[in-house]
């Protein structure tokens, strides 16, 4: 009886772990992600030195904002493991981001911040 239990447990554990295995990136992949982030940061800084962007503010915004969002998403997805972890964490964090974005967009709009810029 005891022998059966000993045999049953590892099999169950393997099946269980296969269902819940979370594959995280390797160390070399983390370094690669950091290189990508550094590259995007370099591109962001470059916009400061290019005269074209000083004369075309909407294009500057359309260049910088997506790069900022991509960097944010990469750190959250890979370094914070949101891509691999339980969906509950993702929902909690995204709720905070969405709530903050909606609330403060309304506030800034009330004060005509976007019209001035």
């Amino acid at each position: 009886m005891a022998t059966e239990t000993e045999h049953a447990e590892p099999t169950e554990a393997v099946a269980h772990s296969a269902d819940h295995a979370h594959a995280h990136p390797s160390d070399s992949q983390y370094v690669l992600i950091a290189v990508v982030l550094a590259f995007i940061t370099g591109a962001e800084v470059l916009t400061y030195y290019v005269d074209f962007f000083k004369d075309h503010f909407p294009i500057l915004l359309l260049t910088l904002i997506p790069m900022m969002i991509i960097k944010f998403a990469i750190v959250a997805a890979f370094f914070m493991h949101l891509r691999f972890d339980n969906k509950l964490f993702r929902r909690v964090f995204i709720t905070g981001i969405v709530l903050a974005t909606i609330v403060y967009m309304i506030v800034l709009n009330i004060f005509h911040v976007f019209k001035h810029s």
Partner: protein
Amino acid sequence: MSDVAIHHDPKPGEHGWTQTGVSNEKLGMWVFLGSECLLFGGLISTYMLYKGTALKGPKPHDLYDIPFTSVSSFVLLMSSMTMVLALSAIQRGDHQRCRVWLATTALLGATFISGQVYEFTSFVKEGMGYTTNTAASSFYTLTGFHGVHVSLGIVMLMSLFMMSVRGRLPQEKSEVVEIVGLYWHFVDVVWILIFTVVYLIP
């Protein structure tokens, strides 16, 4: 093999079992970070509201040293990489490497804070104090709050380092490193927003 972290969910009655199926401590940290989005959202919005309203004294935008702040941003970004490498090391049971990466992360964080202190000092010397104008007040409040978060992160990292040195951070407690890591990465993503919205967008 080291690339895959196998996680066994505990059953009811077992140690570590929770009703949600996830660690309460980790969920607590995510809820805290979700609420922090509102705090920093408020501070960034306040800066956006006041940045063009300075009636006297220099505005923050007149004094920014973009090359210097870019290096600071790069340093903080790289600290996120060293933090995740510390977590990866402790999950493998490599305590020596974990300590090295934790100390490196704290050192990079301290470098960032030193840069911020230098920046604030040079701004004050240029005539932009905390109460010079509303733009300056909102700038110092936003970046100062972020700096306090980084400083708290450094304290947490050094605590983990000391725990590890004393043998009080076994591989089974790797979640503690993960939770501190989540806080550290959040501080990094907030700086990603601040760097673009405050420094790069005129």
